[in-house]
């Protein structure tokens, strides 16, 4: 089916390489966008087109993180939790998304709209916390902006289904001055993030060291125990 529906695109991809096998990643992206995720049949189809042993293609699919071997939501939300994102609000963002969507990492919402993933490094550390929605970058996503973001993405669900999850038609988004999500004018010079100047704050209270047997055998509990 892939070959019949996308013959021209497949031929164009194959013509770029000395060896057909080199086209495995672009063809897997094509299959993923066609079927929504990489079914076993789709992987075997790609193997047949490239005349590769299917096990080799399964191996490739398993190695790279941007291929999905099970159904994912219309929008795959990938939140970067790496240094420096984790120190600039990524954990708070992930907690807000989990709470708002009612799912944990690697799960998909009941309506099939969102899949949530933690990912390692999106190379946009200057705009942390950052996430990608089907490989569209969305910058400076603080927990307060989560509701607006999800509403915006829901409104663009039909567009997302048409474009697929592999980012073959990706764009970038950022927050406008009025708090709305706007598409970046890619001709505009890039603007580094500006933090509001704040007076130096007092150092935080030292965190209490966890009690050796916290929650298990507290003196207070023992007092209240009928034993």
């Amino acid at each position: 089916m892939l070959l019949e529906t996308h013959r021209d695109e497949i031929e164009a991809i194959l013509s770029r390489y000395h060896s057909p096998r080199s086209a495995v990643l672009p063809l897997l992206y094509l299959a993923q966008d066609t079927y929504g995720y990489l079914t076993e049949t789709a992987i075997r189809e790609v193997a047949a087109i490239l005349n590769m042993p299917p096990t080799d293609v399964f191996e490739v699919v398993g190695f790279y993180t941007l291929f999905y071997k099970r159904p994912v939501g219309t929008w795959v939300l990938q939140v970067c939790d790496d240094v420096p994102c984790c120190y600039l609000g990524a954990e708070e963002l992930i907690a807000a998304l989990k709470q708002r969507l009612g799912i944990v990492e690697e799960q998909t919402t009941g309506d099939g709209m969102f899949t949530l993933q933690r990912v390692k490094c999106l190379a946009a550390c200057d705009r942390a916390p950052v996430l990608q929605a089907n490989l569209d970058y969305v910058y400076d996503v603080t927990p307060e902006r989560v509701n607006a973001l999800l509403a915006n993405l829901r409104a663009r669900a039909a567009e997302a289904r048409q474009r697929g999850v592999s980012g073959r038609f990706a764009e970038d988004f950022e927050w406008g001055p009025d708090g709305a999500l706007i598409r970046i004018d890619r001709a505009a010079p890039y603007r580094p993030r500006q933090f509001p100047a704040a007076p130096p704050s007092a150092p935080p209270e030292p965190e209490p060291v966890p009690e050796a047997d916290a929650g298990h055998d507290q003196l207070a509990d023992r007092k209240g125990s009928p034993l």
Partner: protein
Amino acid sequence: MDLSEHIIMRELDVPDINDFEVYRRHGGWEAYRMALKEKTPAEIVAMVKESGLRGRGGAGFPTGIKWGFLPKGVYPRYLLCNCDESEPGTFNNHQIIDRNPHQLIEGVALSAYAIECHTAYIYMRGEFAAAAITLERAIAAAYRAGFLGRNILGTGFDLDIYVHRGAGAYICGEETALMESLEGKIGQPRLKPPFPAVAGLYGKPTIINNVETLANVPRIVEKGVAWYRSHGTEKSPGTKCFSLSGHVNRPGNYELPFGVPLRELIESPEYGGGMRGGRPVKIIIPGGASAPWLTHEHLDVPLDYESVAAAGSMLGSGAVIVLNDTVKAPHVAYKMDEFFKHESCGKCTPCREGTHWLVRVLHRIAEEGRAAPEDIPTLHSIYNQMAGNCFCLLGESAVMPIKSALTLFPEEFEAVVAASRHHPHGNGHGDGRHGPVIPLTAKR
């Protein structure tokens, strides 16, 4: 220190510079046209060699010398542009492409001409989908104008440039793993030698250069070696696009001549704008995740390859992460090594197992606040077993954060040990004894 003219981010103040015609009106593609008509490939290689341009991807190897390694008379040759940037703190490549894709394409085309290659691939990190599309559009414009394709400008030179998107694997930024991935295999590094210049993509001579490196080439050819060398330092000529992130007021990419002091990058109102909330600097990671850490004592170190090396670290990719005193060293090491564990390709045992155990022990210390006294020697033991024994630099890099944390902030690890001294589960295995830290049967 200010630049009168940017090299990598040239003409950034011109509106729509990412448009082909605008770029051309501002002198774009002139170096390429002149080189094709007036210079031999050998002359371009000589210029790049004399300019002292060093690879910006991390290793800092002189680019012209690398090009000179190609065996004479062996064709076809390939040029690969490495845009698989994916290390915490490193984020300039896709912004170079977003801002000025034509400069990169001109750099790729010029370099391909210099090394007598007719097919070049730009290997892009899979997540950079938008940048890949920007680049595809820009390449299409260059084909339409006759700067790419067959018999370019009537000189008989042929060149095709293709964008190839990876699919999410940091290791594919390692040059031999990149070639494996481009050949349709999983991205695991190859044994060197043979080096790519001798036997690379499809077994043919191959040159692999980083985006930022290639973006320098048009300016070197256009303005000459002397002009280029008037920037930066004697051993590190030119400029570097420093990616500044972390607890600074203005994180972002700043193109500066080599030799700018770290303090100026962090504190100058034009660049970093100082620390957020005025809090003190605690940890500076000056060259990407794999660079040994520096502290506030190193704020006056000039940012060039030699000075940063003399301070005990490395400039690497120029990704400067600055963290304030609210972070805990074991936690930073844990997050960094979690990245390396996630990205280890699994080919060699020291890296695959070492990163796993580093993260397992560090998770207990940094996230749960529990440590047995044996944990610290164990961490030393793991990194000593990894250092020098991994197949490629990823495993070697994973050693740096934990080594830095244990060397610079040992008291923070000891504090966790002290706090968990009377904890019945201090070793994290729930058996009530300080048994072996790495059990023979691991619970996964």
